[in-house]
């Protein structure tokens, strides 16, 4: 138990490396790192009409035995994609802690959740079946339904009310802000370069440092660049959220995106881009802003359809402080940082909350439509798939890497429309990781097991693993990992009065020692050393005390001694102090000094001195002080 306490434990609650959910126990603080929502289960359903409201899986249920969510003290969010399960964690679980996230993460995270809730609520609700979750019934279903994993953990989507309640538990933080948790641990978000407000987190005490790297990017897109320097000197670096498409180059993908888009439109076809309402879409719009004029496409309308399209476009313009330098300096002019403001002003880009209403009046073809959801199972994208799927003039371009595009398309087959796969994932690839690790040099790396072996589809690509020394420690879902470092020290404050009273002595060059007797005060996990209280004045003239009052308090500790006593010098000292008739005898291990007159015997050895005398306290104290002169105190 005692040994266990000195370590730091990490509990892994998610099997998805890009949608992590880990719990870290560190110095009696329970910290949850991210709570991503794995939505790949939606691919098991048919699009829109048949999608039940059971679409979401979240990492909680099965792992509740692993950790009691009500004991989680804080949740640290690294980016808006990694907070989608928040309502499942904070609502109806007894959770009473605080969630920390940056302002853009919260605002955009809210938009993503709002869109999701809105999409799911729009799904026609025929009947809500739940028997299929029963194991015995699932067994009887045809494949692949019967092979679906952990159906029992699939949950209904949360409501807007739950979203608001969950978001109200978030405390906003800024990059490099030091946040004290219970005086024991300090956490700090750092820019991770992946998305607006995305952060890596440092979790540290005065003597230990854990870095949590999740969803980072070294590419220059719109967010503030990644802060690498602050990750240095980590004892442990937890690495999650690497690119899901390690073999694709995002820049090349953007180029392909543009050329395919242009090709389709020139041939009179429409382009459908299934996407999230924030993130890469800003970069795509910026590329198109530069591209459409030169490609002679300035008359082709761009439509962005999402219940949060307007909010997303507006919010993107107000986070100047979270943007890369180029965009920041635009704000100083003052101009909107993203050129989509100009696209909107010139009517090239139009946004609508849904396909109903204004959109149906404005709709012109050929056009480019950005809309969700990228799983193609719900949201307005379903209508466009049905509308355009039959014509080979049209193209659907997949840019979001979260879903397998083949699986996403499966229910729409046979499909005449062209399908282009241009996944744009700006997160770190394995080459960048090894560069980063060389730069940052953590003592230990901890990562999901997926990163320690090549992807199943490309088992020959042994370069697609994390390569570092010592080898990374891997974890898998529902595993408890003891982080490989041992805590040895704790911070203490020494009061100036006490410091002044210390008498240091130099033992070795550059190293001094001082013995300290002080009072330790501990409050709110902070330790302060104060000078010992002055001994109370002896009360004289009072009536005789009882014998037991005289019993000394053995808590007044004497220092340890070190050194050895040179016999000759010791004898000389004795003589100087009036002892005569001294006899020295050699023994196997040292000497015996005899004070014959006083019937006293002093055994001196390398590491010990033994004074044997009659019960003469005066004599004993005198001899003691002479011995102590030769020894060092600790």
């Amino acid at each position, binding site marked *: 138990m005692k040994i266990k306490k000195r370590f730091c434990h990490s509990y892994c609650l998610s099997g998805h490396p890009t949608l992590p959910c880990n719990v870290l126990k560190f110095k009696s603080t329970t910290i949850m790192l991210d709570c991503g929502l794995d939505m790949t289960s939606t691919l098991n359903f048919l699009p829109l009409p048949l999608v039940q409201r059971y679409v979401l899986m979240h990492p909680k249920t099965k792992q509740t035995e692993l950790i009691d969510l009500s004991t989680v003290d804080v949740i640290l969010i690294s980016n808006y994609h990694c907070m989608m399960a928040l309502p499942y964690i904070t609502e109806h679980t007894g959770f009473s802690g605080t969630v920390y996230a940056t302002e853009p993460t919260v605002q955009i995270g809210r938009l993503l959740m709002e869109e999701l809730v809105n999409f799911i609520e729009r799904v026609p609700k025929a009947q809500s079946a739940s028997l299929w979750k029963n194991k015995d019934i699932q067994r009887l279903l045809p494949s692949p339904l019967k092979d679906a994993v952990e159906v029992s953990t699939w949950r209904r989507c949360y409501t807007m009310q739950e979203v608001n309640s969950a978001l109200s538990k978030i405390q906003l933080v800024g990059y490099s802000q030091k946040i004290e948790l219970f005086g024991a641990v300090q956490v700090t978000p750092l820019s991770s370069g992946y998305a607006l407000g995305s952060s890596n987190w440092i979790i540290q005490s005065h003597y230990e440092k854990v870095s949590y790297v999740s969803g980072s990017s070294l590419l220059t897109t719109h967010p503030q660049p990644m802060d690498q320097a602050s990750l240095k000197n980590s004892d442990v670096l937890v690495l999650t959220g690497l690119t899901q498409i390690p073999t694709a180059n995002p820049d090349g993908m953007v180029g392909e995106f543009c050329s395919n888009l242009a090709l389709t439109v020139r041939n009179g076809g429409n382009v459908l881009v299934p996407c999230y309402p924030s993130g890469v879409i800003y970069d795509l719009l910026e590329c198109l802003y530069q591209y459409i004029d030169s490609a002679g496409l300035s008359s082709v309308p761009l439509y962005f359809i999402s219940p949060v399209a307007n909010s997303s476009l507006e919010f993107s313009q107000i*986070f100047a402080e979270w943007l890369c330098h180029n965009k920041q300096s635009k*704000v100083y002019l003052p101009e909107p940082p993203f050129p989509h403001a100009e696209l909107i002003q010139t009517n090239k880009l139009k946004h609508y909350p849904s396909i109903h209403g204004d959109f149906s009046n404005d709709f012109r073809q050929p056009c480019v439509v950005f809309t969700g959801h990228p799983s193609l199972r719900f949201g307005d994208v379903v209508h466009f798939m049905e509308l355009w799927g039959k014509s080979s003039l049209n193209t659907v371009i997949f840019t979001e890497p979260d879903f397998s595009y083949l699986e996403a398309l499966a229910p729409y087959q046979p499909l005449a429309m062209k399908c282009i796969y241009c996944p744009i994932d700006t997160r770190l690839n394995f080459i960048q990781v090894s560069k980063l690790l060389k730069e940052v040099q953590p003592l230990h790396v901890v990562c999901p097991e997926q990163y320690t072996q090549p992807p199943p589809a490309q088992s020959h690509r042994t370069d697609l693993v994390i390569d570092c020394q010592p080898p990374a420690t891997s974890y898998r879902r529902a595993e408890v990992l003891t982080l490989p470092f041992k805590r040895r020290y704790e911070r203490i404050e020494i009061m*100036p009065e006490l410091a002044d009273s210390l008498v240091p002595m130099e*033992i*070795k060059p550059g190293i*001094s020692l001082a013995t300290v007797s002080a009072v330790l005060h501990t409050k709110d996990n902070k330790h302060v050393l104060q000078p010992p209280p002055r001994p109370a004045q002896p009360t004289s003239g009072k009536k005789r005390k009882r014998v037991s009052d005289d019993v000394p308090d053995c808590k007044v500790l004497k220092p340890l001694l*070190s050194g050895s006593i040179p016999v000759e010098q010791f004898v000389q000292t004795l003589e100087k102090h009036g002892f005569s008739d001294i006899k020295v005898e050699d023994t196997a291990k040292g000497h015996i000094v005899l004070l014959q007159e006083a019937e006293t015997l002093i055994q001196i050895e390398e590491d*010990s001195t033994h004074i044997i005398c009659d019960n003469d306290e005066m004599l004993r104290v005198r001899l003691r002080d002479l011995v102590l002169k030769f020894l060092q105190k600790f």
Partner: protein
Amino acid sequence: MPEIRVTPLGAGQDVGRSCILVSIAGKNVMLDCGMHMGFSDDRRFPDFSYITQSGRLTDFLDCVIISHFHLDHCGALPYFSEMVGYDGPIYMTHPTQAICPILLEDYRKIAVDKKGEANFFTSQMIKDCMKKVVAVHLHQTVQVDDELEIKAYYAGHVLGAAMFQIKVGSESVVYTGDYNMTPDRHLGAAWIDKCRPNLLITESTYATTIRDSKRCRERDFLKKVHETVERGGKVLIPVFALGRAQELCILLETFWERMNLKVPIYFSTGLTEKANHYYKLFITWTNQKIRKTFVQRNMFEFKHIKAFDRAFADNPGPMVVFATPGMLHAGQSLQIFRKWAGNEKNMVIMPGYCVQGTVGHKILSGQRKLEMEGRQVLEVKMQVEYMSFSAHADAKGIMQLVGQAEPDSVLLVHGEAKKMEFLKQKIEQEFRVNCYMPANGETVVLPTSPSIPGGISLGLLKREMAQGLLPEAKKPRLLHGTLIMKDSNFRLVSSEQALKELGLAEHQLRFTCRVHLHDTRKEQETAMRVYSHLKSILKDHCVQHLPDGSVTVESILIQAAAPSEDPATKVLLVSWTYQDEELGSYLTSLLKKGLPQAPS
């Protein structure tokens, strides 16, 4: 003795050219670098030669911090960095960094182009100066160097205004800049955590004022504007382009909309559009309400407020004009004022503080005949109203902030001496802390006693904590250990560990004393008697009788022996180590007194 030294070069018992030097734990920081609006000679800038007589400012100052974009806080910056010469870092928030150069350029234009001053800083100097700026986020801990760190807090005075904490080790100073403790129509209230600085340097513009509720003031303001335009008069509101102007615009805009008024409202200078744009892009710095609704309706897109043209001033009929600058000391507001001053139907509303020497200050103090350039005398017949809209904390707000931050002492700047005196007493009474109000050039020295950070080995700490759980833990216990000092690194470990780490062996010092007792019984029985005697006296100690016949008290060993020569005497050998000396020596003296007679 470590100390914190503070010297105001400006804003000491004065409002204007804020500039305060702080030395803390060997670091030198300059807070703000402002100009004085009441002067147009050398006195308008702080006297930087005071900072260091020899050597460059860059070598002496570790950093410069600018609290917000008002010129009395940043107006001397290009002069300081480019003409006097400073190449170190200058910290300010993002909105301040964005807006500051525009106001500086404006200031330069008025000084050079209109007043024809020579030897003033140039546009290029403003640009070069801004290159030295490092932008900070709210609450971000900025490491200036290994020891010095600064952190910005929201101040609510104007867009991007911040308070700064300056910290070295366990010593810290908080400088408020200008701040506002009540949220207004466009900004939120200042906030700071209980950071317990050694010193809080606070502004004290409204040291003696306790303002009535904001609502009343707003109603008053609207009523006065409305009445004046109803009777066909013109209303002039001198403002600074950024700050109060936006608040009053929002106020008038909503009022005009509600009352369906058609009287034109104008906003002077080309800055308007731009200024409002800054508010739109930095909307995260405004108050919660505006932030929440900006997607639906951006409060800084005004429908009723139009750009002003010079020619409009002579238009007949009522109008409301916001014109810069705010203290009527130059520029468009002064021009319009001269045109309209002669008509008693018109009104000028001063919404903020006016520095001594400005026209604004003169008319507010009741002067109705003003001497203008060229010996002209301007008679002021228009109504002069003062409405305190400037976003400074009032006395109540200042006390509130002191209560929030819990400083060890307080230092007042940016206010008038007389008013400061009053506030100083109030702070000293209420918070029982020292309060200072140095004049310019006067230095306040505060001795500090920072505690020394170190490490304690977990083994030692856990041993202590375990004992802390014992019932007698209530009384203070002494912790014993050895402090190892290597470089500036302090570690407290148990003495055993210290010996081990240094590769030293422990030297054991042991005492054995012979105590002679008169006792005819056998040794074993003597030992038994010793045992029961000690057991009865030493209730708090562990007294044991071992199978080999010896008695132990804690780690002290007592053995009984019979010397051969005298059977009636027994010798007790009491043996203990140096570490148990007190108890050992106590036991020998106790045993020397003899044993009580055994009950027969």
